[in-house]
């Protein structure tokens, strides 16, 4: 009798443990899928913002870690806006730090770090294979839009990439950028008009 009771108790706790582990495993898989789907675009957003591949990688790494550590228990639908909010915060922090560093460098007479020094050609993958005319044209267009985006103020750049590329809605973009929805609309509209002006009608 006692043995049966013990066995059933062990069985129940064992089942709970297995269920809990399965749930954790499912969530980890879902997170992995989500991050795999967003990581490259996130990297490009950070790279366009910072102009540096290593800095961009650090920012994406921070955003991924924070999402997993703090918000992985939230609904899956919340992950995308949360991830973008974290990433945009990190990008703004990076800008502030760079600004302060540049002020110090100017004060010390070392001159400002030139963000434009980043060679856009480095961003082009060396496929070592001849490219078709179509591919070449897309590559040129990609370099042109990246260069144009980097001339925009950060807020316009963020608004454009989140709204146009990531297709994040106005409310979530406002949360990610830490501003009002009206500001998002204004920044986005200005960004589109500036980019069209910069890239021309034949782009």
């Amino acid at each position, binding site marked *: 009798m006692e043995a049966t009771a013990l066995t059933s108790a062990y069985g129940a706790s064992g089942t709970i443990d297995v269920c809990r582990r399965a749930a954790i495993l499912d969530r*980890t898989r879902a*997170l*992995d899928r989500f*991050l*795999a789907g967003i*990581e*490259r*675009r996130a*990297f*490009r957003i950070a790279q366009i913002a910072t102009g540096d*591949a290593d800095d961009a*990688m650090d920012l*994406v*790494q921070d955003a*991924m*870690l924070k*999402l*997993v*550590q*703090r918000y*992985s*228990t939230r609904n899956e639908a919340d992950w995308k806006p949360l991830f973008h909010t974290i990433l945009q915060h990190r990008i703004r922090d990076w800008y502030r730090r760079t600004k302060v560093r540049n002020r110090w460098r100017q004060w010390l007479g070392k001159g400002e770090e030139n963000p434009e020094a980043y060679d856009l050609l480095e*961003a*082009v*993958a*060396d496929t070592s294979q001849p490219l078709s005319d179509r591919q070449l044209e*897309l*590559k040129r*267009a*990609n370099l042109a*839009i*990246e260069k144009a985006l980097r001339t925009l103020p950060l807020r316009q750049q963020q608004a*454009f*990439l989140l709204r*146009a*590329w990531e297709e994040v809605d106005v409310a979530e973009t406002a949360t990610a950028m830490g501003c009002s929805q009206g500001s998002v*609309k*204004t920044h*986005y*509209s*200005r960004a*589109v*008009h500036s*980019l*069209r002006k910069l890239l021309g009608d034949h*782009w």
Partner: protein
Amino acid sequence: MSTEFHQEDEQFIARAKQVLNQGVAGIDHQTVLRLQQTRVAACAAGPTRGWWILWASGLAMASVAALTWLVWMKQPALIETHHVPALEDMDLVMSAENVELAEDLEFYHWLADDDATG
């Protein structure tokens, strides 16, 4: 400036999206590998304890520390009020007169009763 978009703007946005997607496809293999490693490391890290648990732990520790400090600060005052007068009384207790008083305690009781009865 109007925030409404015209057809040309919409076409431009669609084209920009296509070009940016193409840029993602062109990310070099090394960067893709680094991103994968970063993702695997992040997923392996797992969730940390909630911020409220850390706050609660900190608050509990601060309360214990404050309580300990209060008890420690109060202790010398207690010693002062209770023990120092006792030490002062020690001379009276130890004096020869008081020993005699203690020995003749029955006599003093009798004297007190006698006074009371009149």
